[in-house]
């Protein structure tokens, strides 16, 4: 990396601006704070919001973990790690408990987070109302006046038409009993991990130029109805590698005859479980 770039790529003024937005976001949990998003050398949609958050948070002592689809090794995670390795020379880890900052796309690690850790989420559509009211000023008003009827009507329509709420990922949550927010496109399986989490959760949407946060020990409730409570997806299968029954499983097509196999999406968790299980086997 040529030396005429600053530590962690962004200039200090931009980092300061982003940190201010983060502080505001932490003060108003779930509220989308507009910020002067910068162009990054990775494309929009690849995690520019998350990358900007990470760039503004990183210090020389930080230990960074980057996952995509739960895995340390997916192409985009590799690319982002490579970016911070070269621009910030920070230590990169694959081990969740070691990381001080974990940037993620579409998953929360299966290994529980601890106090002092920061989760950074890459967010494509920060406003859960966007598919209900695509016009930004209107949606902002709905948030301001806490007019969330339309969201509940949509969930109700799901139940009326299909007998259940059909949203499978990016399942909207209510943060600290006020703002409805997008947990980013994590599977709804991961939503409960946000509730009363000891870690800081920061969400960055680069293209839409908004940052929001879930501070530690905050209530995060997935939207539902008393008679139709929030439900988690479950698998009949278990992981073909480590045998886990409790983790999120990816489906892999083995051939064009329809043979399928299921494996953990969280590669680190899978490896750990496998290691633990080996001594127990006869």
């Amino acid at each position: 990396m040529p030396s005429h770039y600053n530590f962690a790529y962004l200039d200090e003024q931009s980092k300061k601006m982003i940190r201010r937005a983060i502080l505001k976001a932490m003060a108003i949990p779930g509220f989308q704070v507009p910020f002067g998003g910068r162009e990054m050398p990775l494309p929009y949609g690849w995690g520019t919001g998350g990358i900007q958050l990470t760039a503004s948070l990183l210090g020389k002592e930080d230990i960074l973990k980057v996952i995509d689809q739960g895995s340390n090794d997916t192409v985009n995670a590799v690319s982002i790690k490579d970016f911070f390795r070269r621009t910030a020379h920070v230590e990169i880890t694959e081990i969740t408990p070691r990381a001080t900052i974990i940037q993620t796309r579409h998953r929360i690690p299966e290994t529980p987070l601890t106090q002092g850790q920061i989760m950074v989420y890459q967010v494509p559509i920060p406003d859960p109302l966007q598919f209900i009211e695509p016009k930004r000023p209107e949606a902002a008003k709905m948030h301001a006046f806490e007019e969330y009827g339309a969201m509940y009507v949509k969930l109700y329509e799901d139940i009326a038409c299909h007998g259940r709420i059909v949203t499978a990922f990016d399942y909207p949550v209510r943060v600290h009993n006020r703002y409805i927010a997008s947990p980013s496109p994590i599977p709804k399986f991961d939503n409960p991990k946000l509730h009363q989490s000891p870690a800081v959760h920061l969400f960055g949407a680069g293209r839409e130029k908004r940052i929001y946060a879930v501070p530690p020990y905050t209530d995060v409730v997935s939207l539902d109805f008393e008679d139709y409570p929030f439900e988690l997806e479950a698998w009949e299968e278990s992981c073909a590698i480590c045998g886990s029954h409790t983790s999120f499983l990816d489906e892999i097509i083995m051939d064009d005859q329809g043979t399928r196999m299921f494996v953990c999406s969280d590669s680190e968790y899978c490896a750990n479980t496998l290691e633990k299980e080996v001594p127990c086997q006869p």
Partner: protein
Amino acid sequence: MYVAVKGGQTAVRNSRRLVTRTRRGPETIPEIGPDQIENQLGLAVDRVMAEGALYDKRAVVQAIKQAQGDLVEAVFLVRAYRTTLKRFGNSTPVNTRKMRAIRRVSGAFKDLPGGQILGPTYDYTHRLIEFDPDMDKDTANQTLEEAGEKEATNKSQTKEGKGAQTTAPLPRVMEILIQQGLMEKGPGELIGEPTQDLTRQPLKIPAARSIRLQALARGDEGFLLSSAYSLQRGFGLDRHPFLGELRVGFVEVLYTPPELGFEIKIGEIKITECFMINRFNGEKDRSPGFENGYGLIFGQNERKAMSVSLLDRSLQNAEEGKAVKYPGQDQEFILAHSDNVEASGFVQHLKLPHYVDFQSELLSVRSLQKTNYLEKQAPGKTKRPKSAPEKNL
């Protein structure tokens, strides 16, 4: 002084001479060769082939050079050439299952038969301008360049694209979803049937899907991209779509000349094929599952193939009777405005002299001012609109 009434001929002649000179630049700089454009600006060539609707690298390369790198202008040149070519018949539909793929990715499945083939892509490079190529090279970009080198070497050794990575048939993700009962089998109406030809008949709205896919295949990349993006931002889609599969590679073109009576291979073309999948929650007589959007484009044009797939799905939905609320769902809006030769011509024709029409407008506006505005004001209170001049022009 610019007086257009006389001296037009000289002005046009001089302008043409100037454009030739500007295009060439200083004589001290070597002229670009067609082989440089074809090999070093390959994606520009692909884009012009797609929008020019003509798979002819020689013509396209010359067009790009002649248009000074203005790709929309190059598309225009290619279209104008294409229209003079004889149409001698229809090929057999290309079999993309047998594609020699240089790239094949699915955003929906981690792994699938045939595997994910990353191939040459800018997707995971870092966009850092290499002002000093030797100093600034990063590993990601190096790897990409090495891959490019290998391919180029293979190209020079054998025929174009022999560096392709796979030749085994690649099952389509869409077929797998159909087999698992997650997607309806398409009507297959396009296979083997005589299709309407958009280049030989005017666009009629509503247009059949075959016509729509033709129009989208040659439509302007920028327009289609932004239209598809608007769908994704909620102006037409109500949820996140998935990339079922995107593949880039070479396919054989088979044709049966009437005088021979049997099928022969007349060449190979590089194409990009895309299947987008959208969730469908089911209706009374239709099971929940996924719906597909499709795009097939000349050359390596991933951004465009994906945009076309999103729009194809959106326009199919509208055809199936779903509400049309946004531009990206409106067949006429998309199809009638996606052709950049038409659009560029009409927007830019405003540069032509309109003196006569404008003179008529002047007369009419002045007369309106007089009868409908000035005379209605009380004599002492006469006000002119802010922008109106004090005296007649």
